[in-house]
């Protein structure tokens, strides 16, 4: 981790695979990319074995483009669809046992702070509704109670997609799934409200229809976690397989849910608001100056 880890040893440039040379030359390391430039730079994750039309895969692609410091970031995931792409990325990845991600992330973030007292290392958990809100619920919430300084992103596909379609606590009430034939009996868990109660300093709920907004939310969550405490993003990332959404309608579904129960929501403490506004103001100024040059 660190920029020196993405510098090829002199003499070895011509022995590296093209993918890696491109990452170093045209990638995001050490730069600030705009998510709207996707396709104009070498991305941190490209090929992966997720299903065609998977909205979670799209979200993860935007996630990597949005990282403020990919060279100083460690991503944690667990069993589930997301990690199939996460483990393929050019960012260090740790696989937590199911439910353990936020406990592992707590220890990791603390260890990094001790080992590198003068550097910022970002720790980001990306896991599904099952890993974070069902089986890992206690560890997730307790990492927030303890005010651990890392970001948790729940990619919520509202189902155990990898094991045949069992309902999760995040499945909507009444929904019938392949392994929930009687329909879910109770309400979708209000993860965002729980995160606020538990002490997250920045909380957002998003249906990822607007890449610029996704990137902004991810960036804000990571920056706020560095300074103030736990941050949480609840992202709707449909399972087109288990919910039988035709590939071409995946985006339409995300838009429909955004109008219904996944309306964009963003909350932060006053000090986080002040901090982020200051950073964003400076960035805008800097951008303006660069344009003027």
């Amino acid at each position, binding site marked *: 981790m*660190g920029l*020196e*880890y*993405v*510098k*090829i*040893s*002199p*003499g*070895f440039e*011509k*022995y*590296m*695979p*093209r*993918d*890696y*040379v*491109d990452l170093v*030359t*045209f990638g995001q390391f050490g730069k600030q990319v705009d998510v*709207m430039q*996707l*396709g*104009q*730079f*070498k991305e941190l994750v490209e*090929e*992966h*074995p997720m299903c065609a039309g998977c909205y979670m895969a*799209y979200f993860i*692609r935007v996630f990597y483009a949005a990282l403020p410091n990919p060279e100083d970031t460690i991503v944690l995931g667990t069993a589930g669809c997301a990690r*199939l792409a996460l*483990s*393929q*990325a*050019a960012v260090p*990845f740790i696989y937590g046992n199911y439910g353990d991600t936020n406990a592992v992330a707590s220890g990791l973030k603390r260890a990094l702070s001790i080992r590198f007292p003068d550097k910022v290392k970002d720790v980001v958990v990306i896991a599904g509704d099952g890993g974070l809100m069902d089986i890992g619920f206690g560890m997730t919430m307790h990492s927030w109670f303890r005010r651990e300084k890392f970001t948790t992103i729940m990619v919520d596909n509202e189902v155990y997609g990898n094991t045949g379609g069992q309902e999760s606590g995040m499945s909507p009430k009444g929904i019938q799934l392949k392994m929930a034939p009687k329909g879910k009996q109770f309400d979708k868990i209000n993860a965002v409200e729980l995160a606020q109660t538990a002490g997250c300093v920045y909380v957002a709920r998003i249906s990822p229809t*607007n*890449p*610029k*907004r996704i990137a*902004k*939310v991810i960036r*804000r969550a990571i920056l706020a976690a560095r300074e103030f405490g736990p941050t949480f993003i609840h992202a709707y990332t449909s399972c087109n397989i288990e919910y039988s959404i035709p590939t071409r309608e995946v*985006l339409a579904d995300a838009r429909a849910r955004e109008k219904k129960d996944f309306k*964009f929501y*963003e909350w932060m403490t006053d000090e986080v608001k002040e901090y982020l506004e200051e950073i964003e103001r400076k960035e805008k100024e800097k951008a303006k100056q660069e344009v003027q040059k």
Partner: protein
Amino acid sequence: MDKEKLITPGPSGYMPTPGAFMGVELPPPGKALLYGEIVDEETAMREAAKAMLTRRNPTIFPGPLVLWGWNAGAMEKAKAVLELAMEIPNCRIIPMPDYRPKYPKIDPEAEINPNHPNLTILHNKIEACIFVGVHCHYANLSLRMIRAGTNCFTIALCAEMGHEDAMVSLRDVHAEEIRKFKDVLVQVRKELGIEWEPKLPPENPSLPKEDWTKISPLDFGEYAALLMPRKGEVVEESE
């Protein structure tokens, strides 16, 4: 040598007994492993050199610890690896830049992956190889897999304590020790009467690279639609 050779080139079967279970011990400082037996460094180096000089398609697999210039030691070690490569006739360099899985599939001419090293070794008919700069836990995994499924002679130039499952394993190997090994190799090459003008191996076949600066969002197929604002669409700010 009186003792039986415990660790020899395979293929030794799907799940061979690990060297450690067969009684192979890691060498003390200053010593090395040859076929699972503790021997003098010089003896091990000569056998390793012979393998790289006489077996088919000798290849160096540099790992992340030498490929990436993360400190001065790594860069110096990388330089020494190239110096060594120059002295091995028709040697190739196939890198292991990191350990992440490769889906949908690896390009076996461009790289090697610790999780399925045999794809690269069998595809390129490599019968002698050097591991250098690979973190020990992944080297252990790979070396045993190679012994299981290929006839490749494995040489581990380890910066730590060595590897039981390599045919030759040197320990505490940094730039200086690599150069020492190079000298032994040149000596053995001369003894074997092999003529060779030092030169660098061919570059990675996946190069030259495409020019990414000229790629347009439209190259991204079905997802391109998500990237660009549509006619009449207003991209809202988050606030």
